[in-house]
């Protein structure tokens, strides 16, 4: 018995070490980004690995100077909160309805949702559709298209189906309606997967900029741009470049590596602040017995 325990503690130590090492190679880049954001571009080019070199706040100063920054932060938070809630409610409720075996043509309807993951009409028709329903230059364009997503529905539905059917059945016996079962039983029991969805959806919303770029145009979009888009416009100058652009790039300021690092650091921080709070929902096991009792 004792021997056995020892063996497992060795396995445990190995486990801890491997996980620790992997964690290091995941966390170090963030440290790298952090120290580089405070270093001069020249120092970055030589390599900055442990602490900031040629300390400078230039990158952060440049970032604060981006026009429209304050309102964009507000918009970014608004879209993240509203968008995530909307996605969470729509997807979980849809998944719940789809998991009910009484739903007629259940498979067909489920496939109707799943198919949307694979069909992509292309950008122009999508743009025309968004424009036709009046979502251009409208805050709703951030949250509505993301409200119902097949991938999330699949994840939640798979999870709901692992909940013992008796629980739902007994509630039905007690005369609980669909809605009541949804928020009395399904929601509390699916907390772990819902926490996942919240993280996924919130990160997607927080990091999104493409919808902003394409659907917020001209003077009507004033004040509706979100943070990531503003940062993106600063970042991309080096990413996709064309010869003509470069030729004319004479005298155009090029964003430095440190600016990119600073931006990226600033946008990751809010995620890392909220993330641990969500964690306990998907790591803490749920005692079905407790619910049953």
């Amino acid at each position, binding site marked *: 018995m004792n021997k056995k325990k020892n063996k497992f503690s060795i396995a445990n130590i190995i486990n801890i070490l491997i996980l620790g090492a992997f964690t290091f190679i995941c966390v170090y880049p963030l440290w790298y980004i952090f120290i580089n954001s405070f270093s001069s*571009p*020249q120092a*970055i*080019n*030589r390599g900055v690995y442990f602490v900031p070199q040629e300390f400078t706040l230039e990158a952060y100063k440049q970032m604060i*100077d981006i*026009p*429209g920054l304050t309102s964009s932060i507000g918009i970014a938070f608004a879209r993240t909160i509203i968008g995530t809630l909307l996605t969470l*409610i*729509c997807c979980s*409720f849809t998944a719940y309805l789809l998991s009910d075996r009484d739903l007629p*043509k259940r498979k067909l*309807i489920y496939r109707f949702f799943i198919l949307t993951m694979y069909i992509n009409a292309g*950008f*122009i028709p999508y*743009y*025309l*559709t968004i*424009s*036709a*329903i*009046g*979502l*251009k230059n*409208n805050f*709703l364009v951030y949250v*509505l298209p993301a*409200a119902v997503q097949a991938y999330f529905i699949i994840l939640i539905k798979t999870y709901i189906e692992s909940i013992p059917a008796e629980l739902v059945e007994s509630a039905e016996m007690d005369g609980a309606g669909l*809605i009541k079962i949804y928020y009395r039983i399904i929601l509390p029991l699916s907390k772990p997967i819902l926490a996942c969805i919240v993280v996924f959806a919130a990160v997607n919303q927080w990091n999104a900029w493409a919808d902003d*770029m*394409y659907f917020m*145009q*001209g*003077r009507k*979009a*004033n004040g509706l*741009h979100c943070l990531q888009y503003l940062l993106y*416009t*600063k970042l*991309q*100058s*080096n*990413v*996709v*470049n*064309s*010869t*003509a*652009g*470069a*030729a*004319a*790039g*004479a*005298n*155009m*300021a*090029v964003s*430095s*590596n440190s600016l990119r690092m600073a931006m990226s650091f600033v946008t990751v921080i809010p995620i890392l602040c909220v993330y641990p709070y969500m964690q306990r929902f998907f790591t803490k096991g749920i005692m079905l017995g407790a619910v049953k009792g």
Partner: protein
Amino acid sequence: MKKRLVSKLLALTLAVSMLGSLAACGNSSSSGGDTTDKSQESAAKEEDAGSASEADAGAGEEETDTGTDTAAAPAFEERVALDVVAFVSDGEADGLRTDPVSKYIEDSLNIDLYLTHVTEADWPTQLSAMMADNDLPDIFMLSDPTKQLPMLLEANSVLNLSPYLEQYAPNTTSDPAGELMIAANTTTANSPDGNLYLWGMCKGSWDDGTIPTCGHYVRWDLYKEAGYPKLENFDEDMLDVMQAMVDLEPETADGQKTYGIGSWFGNGQDWGEWFFIYGMAPQEGASLIETTGLTLAISTVDSTPINSNQLTDPDGYFWRAVKFMNKANQRGLLDPDSFTQQSDVYEENLKAGKYMFNYPGWMTSNANAEFNKTEGNLKTFISIPAVGVDSEDRFGNMYRGERQYVVSAATENPERCVALLDFVSTHDFSRIAWNGLEGNFWNVEDGKAVPTDEYLTVTKDNALGVETGVNVYHHFCGYGNGTIDPEDGVAIDLYQFSQKALDTKMNDTVKDFCEHYGQASQADVYRAETKNTTAMNFISFGEPEGDMSSYVNELKAYRGKNVFNCVAAKTDEEFEAARDKMIEEMKANYHVDEIFEYFYNEALAQADTVEQLAAMQNAIK
């Protein structure tokens, strides 16, 4: 209007129905099948709406056309708003700007100017979608006029500017360079019916000849120190010169190893090939044309196409440039990071002094500026005159304008749009765009514009732009910064090219360069050393017909995937084998000869146009 109302209602219903479902009292009565029908219906409706508004746009155009005939007042009494999408500085948020130059435009033309800043990267997709949606700004930039103009014309969404010119563009029509731009933009390649659709901005040149966009820049201080080693032909001698310079300075000030040359192949196809396209041809008086897949080169001396397929001729400009890089690589002169680094890292390396030799001019000036931060600096990149040939493309000549703008056919104020384009196209406005309003950073002394001392010490950044308007419109104005204003004979950009600015930049290295060639100024050196220094390329290609454009695309993709392997070859034999294999493959599977033939003939067919434009250009001189 109605369309917008309908769409708003639709959005509202959608939102309400969704909220309804959230509150869980959805009472809709159609079934699943109906939903799909509906969506199809709405799709069909939308297309109808699209074509209807197209028709509207067409009608609008006719109305405004007749309107012009009766309108007489050149001064505008009513204040109107214009939406302009342009390559302008992004120092302020999109919309109305607060800088003095913006105010100056607005007050002069009695408009509210709503500016949206775009870059080349994302604008094409956005523009296509807006085109399809028929919701275009009043004035906007075309990122690829060759492809976009035909599309806009097909959709009837671009305004014919010709009827407005006489009345609303007096400055441009009376300016020889403006006339040349109009003539060039009404040739068959740029306009199917001889009317003016494209409005060229940034005419003239980007520099005064000392920092051409693509040049052969060497660290003159080291070249001097090495005792001016023999430099009679580029392909071989330049490598030896690089070697000599590296030997003199094997490490940068902060201990990094130096190399003769670097590149940004990490950017991959197109942009990563910049060195092959611009590293050899312009410096020898030719221009490799990208739209032809680099098969065709045109002489910048007399605008004639060169009768040799550049992609299959091992001695052509393209392959010589590749071979040069390969040789540098074999001799260890090419920074090994070149294969994976991107252009931003390249530029930082250049600034750090890691390279002895460089092609792109705008990066060179940034690097020199960086060097100059050190007191008593002698480190300087200077572009050398043409090596072993008698012509080069040095004094740029953007006769058509470097950037093309169009006016939407649906605009409510076509006169104002043309007036705005005309207003910003003058030499006077260009000087304001580059230097701010007169009296702030520059004054007129003895009829010549002179920068203040303070101006030459400022850093041109976004903050300065917001405060003074400097470099906000410098890509949305008539002339590039190196163009000479005919009125006072001074270059547009006083910050870089006024005599005062040149004097402050003149360090011992530059002086030595001039003395070495026995001339008073850098520009004189180039004029004296090389016979032809001004680009005269008047050929432009429209969108090719039939399968040709897809052939070119496929050729480009193949070229970009394979050419870097040639650079990496370890020996001359390996290089030649890789090169010959590529040539063979392009001949067998990528229609390379057919493409060349097509464009070569197209170019020959433009002989008359070229003659006419060249005559106009010579008249300007």
